[in-house]
């Protein structure tokens, strides 16, 4: 019998171009809260997805109660006693609470050859489960009508109903208020008393020091170490999460920020009202980085500036003149460009060729006298950018979906450069692309700034923020929590600002 309910040994996982996990060990004791920490992209989620059977590790072993197991699917993980509470919950909103709890394993009654789902048994079992956990929720209520915190407790109840020995919670308090978070901590204490181990992923340091027994810290897909929480302080945790040598990953600064180009005053978003009264400016030839945790509403901020989301109030001034931007078309007309965070969802047209993907935002330029598109101009521009940005593609007629992530990203950059923008909004421009392409994109960004263009870029990689920006704006929960000059900024400072309003 092992002392550990879970042992993950030298787990490795590689995605095309990225080593997401590199020989990571994780040992979790029964009946404890084990915090898993690291920057965005450190590999926490990937590790947990390996545990939950969503990803299959390339190498390494997983032991549950000392027995080696193969986890090929979430269903199998659940059956072996591993449950996961995701950061964003996706219940079947239009069905009842109890149907959501027993989904995939409804209680069945039979009579001869007939088999049917027994609502009565389901109700009884749900009531029993909820009583045990002291949950006061009507099992027959439509789950979509309940608050996030209730849906989360239902999710936990579901994990308990699977007789789970390990429950993974991914940032469970990120959408809870402090009273709801307190209740969650009680539930966690109650679960650990029953011998359940909790793997707790969170960025909130105070929270972790309060409830965790052990803390494992990861960085860049590698294990940094595991310590008893009692031996740690916030400073020590931050130092271990970030401490890395930047080296010459970033191009030497050659851009010289000039006068103020765009000023944003008290900008708030509507539907949802997530961005709260933000003011800042960006200069000509400046690279302004935006840092913050997932959920700090950075994307919402720049999408509101670009007219993709409606604004509630506030002004956007370019060179002192107020602009009315109601749609992306307006923003493009004012020579803005937006490289979105979700390349697949809002960037590429997967079926269309590299050529069409490059010229799509810039069609008017190719209209001839007859008001028809001239192929010669389109092809020439596409060819030029394929060469200039060194886009690796068999031809400009190749569908973009056949290209690697980094090359897709370069095609999207080409699309926007073709519109001759003076202000570029780049949302996580290097997410999910390999190191080589990353360096090339850094080079392009720095070159653009040198030409006098203003650049606002969002990144969750703090080294990138410090290495590339002139100034760093940090957001926390939809508010501006500080602006730092990049020179001399430390990752600790950014992380502190990023958690400034976190309760």
């Amino acid at each position, binding site marked *: 019998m092992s002392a550990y309910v879970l042992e993950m040994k030298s787990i490795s996982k590689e995605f095309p171009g990225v080593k997401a996990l590199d020989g990571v060990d994780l040992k979790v004791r029964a009946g404890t809260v084990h915090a898993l920490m690291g920057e965005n992209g450190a590999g926490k989620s990937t590790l947990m997805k390996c545990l939950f059977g969503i990803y299959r590790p390339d190498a390494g072993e997983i032991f549950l109660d000392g027995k080696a197991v193969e986890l090929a699917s979430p269903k199998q993980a659940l059956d072996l006693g591993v449950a996961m509470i995701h950061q964003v919950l996706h219940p079947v909103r239009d069905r009842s609470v109890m149907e959501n709890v027993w989904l995939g394993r409804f209680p069945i009654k039979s009579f001869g050859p007939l088999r049917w789902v027994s609502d009565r048994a389901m109700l009884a079992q749900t009531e029993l489960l909820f009583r045990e956990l002291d949950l006061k929720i009507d099992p027959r209520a439509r789950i979509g009508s309940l608050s996030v915190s209730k849906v989360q407790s239902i999710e936990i109840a579901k994990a308990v109903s699977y007789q789970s020995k390990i429950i993974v919670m991914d940032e469970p308090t990120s959408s809870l208020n402090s009273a709801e978070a307190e209740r969650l901590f009680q539930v966690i204490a109650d679960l650990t008393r029953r011998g359940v181990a909790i793997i707790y992923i969170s960025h909130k340091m105070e929270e972790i020091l309060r409830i965790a027994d052990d803390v494992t810290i990861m960085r860049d897909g590698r294990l940094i170490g595991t310590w008893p929480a009692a031996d740690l302080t916030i400073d020590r945790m931050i130092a271990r999460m970030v401490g890395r040598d930047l080296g010459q990953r970033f191009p030497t600064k050659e851009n010289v920020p000039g006068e103020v180009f765009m000023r944003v005053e008290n900008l708030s978003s509507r539907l949802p009202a997530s961005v709260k009264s933000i003011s800042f400016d960006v200069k000509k030839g400046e690279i302004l980085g935006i840092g913050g945790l997932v959920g700090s509403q950075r994307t919402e901020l720049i999408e509101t500036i*670009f007219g*993709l989301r409606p604004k509630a109030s506030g002004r956007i001034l370019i060179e002192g003149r107020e602009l009315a931007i109601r*749609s*992306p*078309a307006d*923003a*493009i*007309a004012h020579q803005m460009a*937006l490289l*979105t965070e979700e390349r697949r*969802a*809002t*960037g*590429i*047209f*997967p*079926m*269309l060729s590299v050529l*069409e993907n490059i010229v*799509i*935002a810039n*069609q*008017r330029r190719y*209209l001839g006298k007859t*008001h*028809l*598109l001239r192929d010669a101009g389109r092809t020439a521009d596409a060819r030029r950018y394929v060469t200039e940005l060194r886009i690796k593609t068999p031809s400009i007629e190749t*569908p973009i*979906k*056949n290209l690697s992530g980094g090359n897709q990203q370069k095609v999207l950059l080409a*699309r926007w450069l073709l519109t001759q923008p003076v202000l570029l909004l780049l949302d996580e421009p290097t997410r999910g692309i390999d190191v080589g392409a990353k360096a090339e994109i850094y080079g392009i960004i720095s070159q653009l700034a040198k030409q006098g263009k203003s650049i606002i870029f969002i990144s969750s990689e703090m080294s990138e923020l410090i290495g590339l920006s002139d100034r760093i704006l940090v957001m926390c929960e939809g508010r501006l929590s500080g602006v730092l000059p990049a020179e001399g900024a430390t990752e600790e400072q950014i992380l502190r600002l990023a958690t400034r309003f976190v309760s």
Partner: protein
Amino acid sequence: MGAAWKRIAAFSLEYAIYIVLLILVVGIAIREPAFLSAGSLRNILLSSSTRVIIALGSALVLISGGVDLSAGRVVGLAAVLSASMLQIPEYARRFYPELPNLPLFVPLLIAVAAGLLIGLFNGLAVSKLRIAPFIATLGSMVIVYGLNLIYFDQEPNNSQPIGGLRPDFTALGSGSVASIPYIVIFAAVVVGLIWILFNKTILGKNMYAIGGNKDAAKVSGINVDATLIKIYAIAGALAGLAGVLEAARSGGAKSNYGEMYELDAIAACVVGGVSTTGGIGTAQGVLAGVLIFAVINYGLTFIGMNPNLQYIVKGLIIVAAVAIDVRKYWSRS
């Protein structure tokens, strides 16, 4: 095996519909060599001409990521509208007994405009009201049929088939120049215009973009709503034009004209390589799809195949075409 074989396989996938069309023609010709005649070609082109006009409208909508179920009923409405205003003065049961002889283009424009208006309605419902295209056009399909029935049932017509059409009107459907029927020329012009729309205009490029990724289209500054409205309006107008030509060709009109044509049009599009999830399709593919069905209809009857069996052949071709098409995109992803 090896590279050559792979290239042949890729080629066959790419041009599968044209190969199927060729096999059909050759197969039928072997059974019945008389099939290869100018008369057959003429008949196949004649029956394809109105169908291809409707199918191109459906293709526009499908590529933009939608579907137009109202096309068939618009054909019926346009046929009845144009025929009701283009009867010879001496005809006994005129729809409008007192109507003077209108210039030919007036009723034709009215009928096409009616189609355009219905398309506009579809486009507004889909874009501004955010109704799923299937539902929006299902609704307009039923509404248009109702409107047509009311119009058709007016005194003194009382739902009688409309006949006695003016010869200048029927000539559009049955006349020819240098033994090429006018109606085939119209269809060829429409195919050409739609090819230009697909390949050489911003509207066409935006249609592919919206069908391929609506959110990315929005970020790229495309006015998605305006584009969709234009596309549905053009599709409606094309169905209206097809209705006018159907009336001219058959020399009359009834309210049930065009029934189920929308499904035939969608089937032809799908067989011709148009994706029902949007973003993919060509004008020449749609033409090939329509021709395949025309060859099946005419050719299988020509060799004396049981008409009931023909339905099964058509259905199998639809399913097989999509199965092949799906593989085409698998092999590349």
